[in-house]
């Protein structure tokens, strides 16, 4: 199994840390992983994206043009990556702030109201874990118990008290993902 994922949105949405938790979860189930962010001035422009790869085999390029899954969290990222999902691949997005919704028919498209749900949970910082929950519902590539272990590894000790809230957010995301279109 190899899953090549792009996560893209605004800086501050937890894009990089979501990628990191996903990668750590992969390590917890003995997979090879890579996490390649855009960095430098590109980051300061307000957008952030990270390529995360989980694989049972040695990973080739950590930098990719085409992806199995795109997790899209703003319109700029939608414009940039909608056509880079491989045919038969998956696009998951938060409709908040999206004006041009994806129309491709050769990929699976899912929607998750992450921003709205995070507001419901009363903690905007749970946003990325809600999205992660939605992703794992449609692509269950890592087990929840390994995500929990990944959170333990990637969060500093002083934040471990937040792990139950994060798990709750993942659950919430998992329950709330909507199918827009499947092939």
């Amino acid at each position, binding site marked *: 199994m190899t899953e090549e994922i792009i996560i893209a949105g605004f800086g501050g949405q937890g894009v990089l840390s979501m990628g*990191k938790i996903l*990668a*750590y979860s*992969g*390590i917890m189930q003995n*997979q*090879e*992983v*890579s*996490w*390649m*962010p855009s*960095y*430098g*001035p590109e980051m300061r422009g307000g957008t952030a994206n990270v390529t995360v790869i989980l694989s049972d085999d040695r*990973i*080739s*390029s*950590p*930098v*990719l*043009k*085409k992806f199995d899954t795109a997790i899209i969290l703003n319109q700029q990222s939608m414009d940039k990556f909608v056509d880079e999902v491989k045919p038969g691949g998956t696009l998951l997005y938060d409709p908040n702030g999206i004006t041009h919704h994806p129309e491709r028919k050769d990929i699976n498209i899912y929607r998750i109201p992450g921003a709205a749900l995070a507001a419901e949970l009363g903690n905007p910082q749970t946003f990325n874990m809600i999205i992660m929950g939605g992703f794992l519902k449609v692509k269950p590539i890592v087990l929840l118990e390994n995500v929990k272990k990944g959170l333990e*590894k*990637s969060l500093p000790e002083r934040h471990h008290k937040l792990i139950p809230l994060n798990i709750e957010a993942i659950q919430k995301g998992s329950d709330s993902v909507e199918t827009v279109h499947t092939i």
Partner: protein
Amino acid sequence: MGDVRLMKGNEVIAEAAIRCGCDGYFGYPITPQSEIMETLMIRRPQEETGMVVLQAESEVAAINMVYGGASCGKKVMTSSSSPGISLKAEGITYLAGAELPALIVNIVRGGPGLGTIQPAQSDYFQAVKGGGHGDYKLIVLAPASVQEMNDFVDLSFKLAFKYLNPAMILSDGVIGQMMEKVELSDFKPRWTAEEIKKISGSWATIGKTADRERNISTSLDLDSAKQEIFNHKLQAKYRAMEENEVRFEKIACDDAEYLFVAYGSSARICQKAVEQAREKGIKVGLLRPITLFPYPTKAIQEMLKDVKGILSVEMSAGQMVEDVRLAVNGKVPVEHFGRYGGIIPTPEEVVEALEQKILGK
């Protein structure tokens, strides 16, 4: 399994230095490698192993601190990125001329001049052909994964002390900034004063005792005849490295009719390009030089009986391709494909370049 973590390449360099018993790091901030010194400062190895970590006033001072530390038989290192390495070039040639072991890490960014902070491989010539003045060579290792960033720190010190020659890890912002799974090395204690005396006492400036002549770290000899003899000695050392230390990896080469040659992050991209090209029915393999000096010239020559063309892929305007051409010596077509200025080529672009430049499509 040992200590497995998800870490950035740059952070791993710092961690590997502490774990391999490095005595001193001297650096100056520059993007995209500042995490190396920052990680060391956070880790406070002074308290754990006694390793000295010092932010120098300049790249020039940092490399000369390395010269001072190396003269004492210590395992010392510095790191920088391209413009900073140019500043260090003076110190590097002095290290080579004084036959001192040291590690220099270059997380390459696009140039020339201040250039960009994005990844590039445009310092190949500087690393393998000299960089500073005089006839000298560095041992140059090109990691292609975060795991190799870990492994090559200790390996660099081993080779540097084996040959009494500075070693360089030539990497770039892709490997430096990305996180991968890495199994960290076990901790090795730093050498004690007694061990240093045993290992390097014949040359290290550790205090002249009555039982020996004074040790002098110098690259100066005003007598040309002696200087020529010394140069012969250096050249013999470089030939020994070529004999014993060439490292490379072959991927999908067994039935290859065409060949990519690429190192570091470009090799990772080419690995994907191999997969994609083979899906199209093109039998292409990848030869990844791990040591850029000594260069795997013979390994390339041995491939020539089977391959019909070679594409050298680098994030530069075409530097390593010259060494590929020297190895091939006109026997098969050799072309270059590169993106530069901080642009990372995609695997798709690499396949397209193979088709256009080598297959003539």
